[in-house]
């Protein structure tokens, strides 16, 4: 592998490529500089042509001169032959200062001599004025009648555009050379170059689109006027306003997590451990909110309980004394939206508790209640902790609901947004979202690495078909009533949105109308189209990428694997607000200028949805017998072929659900996207928000309903595409 001959060839080739690379880019650079200099010269000449010949007019002319930013002019009055008599006029003091300091220098004398003969002169080196590099050109001002030089212009041109461009060229030159070295090196000196390229590409993606923006955001919070400072943090951590927001977020999280887990457990227990008709219906109702777009529940809560709400104003007329805006309303909306997370986690756990265990307890003469308390409940405690932490994280990171419903109640995600968009203080926004990261990341890590390890579920094994009824009649009646109440509430919330589409002016005029539809759809047409396009582009990329990442994480050994896993998973734990802020920070300057383009939104989608796809892929791949891929490789298939002919068909279920998940999540994104949209690329959810902020509830309802329809359609399509054939899943497992 590392034979001497190969290494020598590699070094020689690298050397030649380096020279070639250097030569090409140097030529490009010189060419570019020459062109710019010529442009500047022409520019200078035209300025000189317009300059007055009479010294008395100079001041006036200079004052009125329109120049590009960074460029300035100094008029040296008098014939350049008599250097002693010269004096200068300029609007730029620094330039005057610079001229007075250097006017006796040999190069200036040369320049003046050229001017005397009517020739331009460019200083060979660029000069630093005002902390910026400038190019200096001397241009004679000649009297057209006598062909005599009556003055000289000293024009300083800003070199920043040139420098920016040459910097970019340098970056390209280095990138191309390193690309060559990497490709050649891995191609010649490693066994499996394709996988290695893939690993490098993934690392580059993580580096540029995850690590770099987050680093930029963190860095910004420690900078004050370009140097290190803790001022910002001192301000944030001592000001009541921000600490209040932190506590507000945490308090909301605590209450929502507790309520959601309670309701989730209620549903999960009823559906998995009770004989009950309509289980499927309750399961669907308890999962539905998870895919419902942001703002939809908030919107209907406002329609029902807001200042002009149907219930609070029209039915009870208590809207003056009770306000839905604030903690109470947030808890209701978040609980309705997030208890499905708890439900899904807990029903998974409860389902896998073997009924035999309960039978054993009953057989030992425990009562039903004792059995529940001593067997079922303890076994589900890891699940309860896990779902509580999951909801807690989700609640803290939630942005859409508080944005519309927080009122005077302060939460960090919205405060961060306000700092950025309202006060244009990116550093405050970044710091606040970092502050938010502390509790979310803690809860996330706890859930991941502590609670999950305590789970008993894997020990107890497969779900059993048999069920032992643990509830007596009154308890059962109570549980069912509770479920029905929650379900009815949920249905009425969704019903309200649909009703909102057909009402003229909610809160004032409840007459039926169809007018909302054409108006909302024509005003939202572009946003709908943008959202669909962006999601449609992001989805396949995220899908394939996540399967590739899952594949190399599960099947390949390489240095830095742990780092890669962590890098990919970071966007899972980081609130969207933080990602949004760090993206506008990182990508609004060259070399990667993306702000305002579609690509920044697409990349953001991909990066944010990658973790879920990767997790799904990993789960499936870990179940798969490695011998299947090894057999394919043994028979001569390369990595690309294995991926295409073996892996993709086998992980199709995970792949398809990852696709639909990414699509739906992209369609319904708010927290990060709201920072990244532009006039060219708008997002439906933001438009819904704008409509509701302007009290155009009818339009908001129509767009929400449209979004819900799209989301449901996608999930329906996914169900159709998923193979019902479980023969497959049975045989690929070890």
């Amino acid at each position, binding site marked *: 592998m590392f034979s001497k001959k190969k290494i020598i060839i590699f070094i020689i080739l690298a050397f030649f490529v380096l020279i070639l690379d250097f030569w090409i880019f140097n030529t490009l650079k010189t060419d570019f500089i020459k062109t710019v200099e010529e442009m500047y010269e022409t520019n200078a000449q035209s300025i000189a042509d317009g300059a007055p010949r009479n010294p008395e007019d100079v001041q006036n002319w200079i004052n009125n001169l329109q120049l590009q930013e960074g460029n300035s002019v100094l008029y040296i009055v008098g014939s350049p032959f008599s250097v002693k008599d010269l004096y200068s006029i300029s609007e730029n003091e620094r330039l005057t200062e610079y001229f007075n300091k250097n006017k006796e220098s040999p190069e200036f004398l040369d320049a003046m001599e050229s001017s005397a003969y009517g020739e331009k002169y460019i200083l060979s080196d660029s000069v630093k004025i005002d902390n910026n590099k400038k190019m200096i050109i001397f241009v004679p001002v000649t009297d057209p009648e006598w062909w005599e030089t009556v003055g000289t212009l000293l024009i300083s041109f800003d070199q920043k555009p040139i420098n920016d461009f040459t910097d970019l060229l340098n970056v390209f030159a280095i990138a191309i050379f390193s690309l060559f070295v990497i490709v050649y090196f891995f191609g010649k000196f490693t*066994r499996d170059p394709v996988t290695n390229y893939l690993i490098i590409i993934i690392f580059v993606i993580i580096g540029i689109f995850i690590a770099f923006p987050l680093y930029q955001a963190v860095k910004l919070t420690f900078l004050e006027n370009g140097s290190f400072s803790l001022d910002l943090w001192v301000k944030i951590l001592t000001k009541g306003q921000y600490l209040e927001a932190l506590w507000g977020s945490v308090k909301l999280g605590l209450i929502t997590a507790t309520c959601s887990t309670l309701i989730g457990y209620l549903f999960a227990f009823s559906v998995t451990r009770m004989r009950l008709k309509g289980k499927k219906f309750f399961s669907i109702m308890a999962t539905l909110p998870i895919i419902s777009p942001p703002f939809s529940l908030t919107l209907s809560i406002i329609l029902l309980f807001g200042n002009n709400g149907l219930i609070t104003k029209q039915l009870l007329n208590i809207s003056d004394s009770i306000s839905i805006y604030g903690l109470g309303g947030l808890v209701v909306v978040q609980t309705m939206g997030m208890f499905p997370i708890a439900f899904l986690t807990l029903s998974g756990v409860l389902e896998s508790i073997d009924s035999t265990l309960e039978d054993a307890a009953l057989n030992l003469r425990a009562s039903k209640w004792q059995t529940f308390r001593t067997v079922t409940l303890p076994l589900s405690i890891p699940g309860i902790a896990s779902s509580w932490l999951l909801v807690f994280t989700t609640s803290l990171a939630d942005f859409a609901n508080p944005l519309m419903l927080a009122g005077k109640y302060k939460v960090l995600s919205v405060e961060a947004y306000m700092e950025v968009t309202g006060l244009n203080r990116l550093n405050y926004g970044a710091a606040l979202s970092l502050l938010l990261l502390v509790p979310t990341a803690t809860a996330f890590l706890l859930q991941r690495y502590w609670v999950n390890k305590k789970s008993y579920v894997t020990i107890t094994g497969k779900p059993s078909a048999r069920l032992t009824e643990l509830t007596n009649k009154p308890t059962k009646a109570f549980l069912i009533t509770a479920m029905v109440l929650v379900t009815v509430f949920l249905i009425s919330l969704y019903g309200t949105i649909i009703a909102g589409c057909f009402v003229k002016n909610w809160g004032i005029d409840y007459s039926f109308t169809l007018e909302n539809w054409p108006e909302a759809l024509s005003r939202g047409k572009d946003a709908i189209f943008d959202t669909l396009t962006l999601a449609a582009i992001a989805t396949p990329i995220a899908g394939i990428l996540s399967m590739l990442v899952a594949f190399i994480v599960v099947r390949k050994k390489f240095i830095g694997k742990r780092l890669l896993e962590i890098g990919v998973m970071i966007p899972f734990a980081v609130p969207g607000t933080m990602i949004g802020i760090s993206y506008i920070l990182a990508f609004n300057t060259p070399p990667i200028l993306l702000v305002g383009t579609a690509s920044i939104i697409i990349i953001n989608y991909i990066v944010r949805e990658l973790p879920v796809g990767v997790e799904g892929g990993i789960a499936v791949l870990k179940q798969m*017998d490695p011998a299947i891929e090894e057999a394919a490789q*043994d*028979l*001569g298939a390369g990595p690309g072929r294995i991926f295409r002919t073996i892996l993709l068909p086998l992980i199709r279920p995970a792949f398809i659900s990852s696709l639909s998940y990414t699509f739906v999540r992209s369609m319904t994104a708010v927290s990060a996207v709201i920072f990244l949209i532009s006039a060219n690329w708008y997002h439906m959810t933001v438009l819904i928000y704008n409509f509701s902020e302007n009290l155009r509830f009818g339009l908001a309802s129509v767009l929400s309903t449209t979004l819900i329809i799209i989301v449901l359609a996608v999930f329906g399509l996914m169900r159709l595409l998923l193979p019902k054939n479980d023969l*497959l899943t*049975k*045989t690929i497992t070890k």
Partner: protein
Amino acid sequence: MAVNSLPVTLKNITKIFIDPHSKSRVVAVDDISIRINAGELVTLLGPSGCGKTTTLRMVAGFELPTKGKIFVGDNEITMLLPNQRDTAMVFQSYGLFPHMTVAQNVGYGLKIRKIPKNQINKKVNEILDLVGLSDLGDRPPARLSGGQQQRVALARALIVEPSVLLLDEPLSNLDALLREQMRIEIRRIQKSLGITAIYVTHDRIEAMSLSDRIIVMNKGKIAQVGSPSEIYINPASEFVAGFIGKATFFPVKIDSVELGVARVFLDDKEIRIKRGAKETEGSETGRILTRPESLKLVEKGTGQITGTVKYNVYLGNTVESYIQTKFGELMAQIDNPAINKIYDEGKQVDIEIKPEISKLFASE
């Protein structure tokens, strides 16, 4: 089918794994050299963790040796990727592609080699005939029995006409009866094609019944190389003796070694033994390896060891008689129980060691 079988040579192969948890180095294969001749079936036999599967996977290309070189014929293949090698493997778990039919599974390797479709079909039919699955080509593998799946895996490996066939415990997932059948089947096909084959197993019966030669491995090293009978009758070490069959050892004093015959004393009973005598020259003590069939039960007072019959296990063609002695419990095998005498449980007997099928080892 024509197979271009080639010899396989492993030169000073070492494989060191880094344990992912403790970060310590584990020497899985320790400087072994093997030559397998063209057309030969060689078994790597050993307890789990002895490095046999790692060795096989290095030949297949799934693992890279830390040191050493591997050749197929004259070509070095040490660093080649599995898909660049002319080897084909039959996996312990078969690794059949569940989303393809039997015929698609078998034809996969040919498709990759860009063989025209009609030729693939022809060859697939041929090879399915050879393994006796002619009419199951359209089934998905999940609808086959374990033995049939095994045959598909074998057919899929053979169809690409590899220079070397690698088999990684291919029969361990089958029940006993099927295993016996498949053993014969594999041997038949291997011989009829004359293909070089390396077979990994921990089952000594499998190894002995299949192999031209057996390589016994222990703790990453080669313990012995030889034909099945060599290894059974003349094991190189007590480990090999114990691994290849049931073995009982008796401590003896070595009195003298003359003309290739050792005179040893078990307690005060004299035994003259040839096998292993030379190697023990100069040692004062040693151990005699016996097999159940080299222990003969005789009337009290006429053998070398005294004991009591604990219980007899009747197996039809033989009886296993378990005897309690001062050396511990041991088992003597009595062939033809209808003819030979069986001693009742509780009865005192003597045991006579037959030196012709025993071997002397020097104490370590």
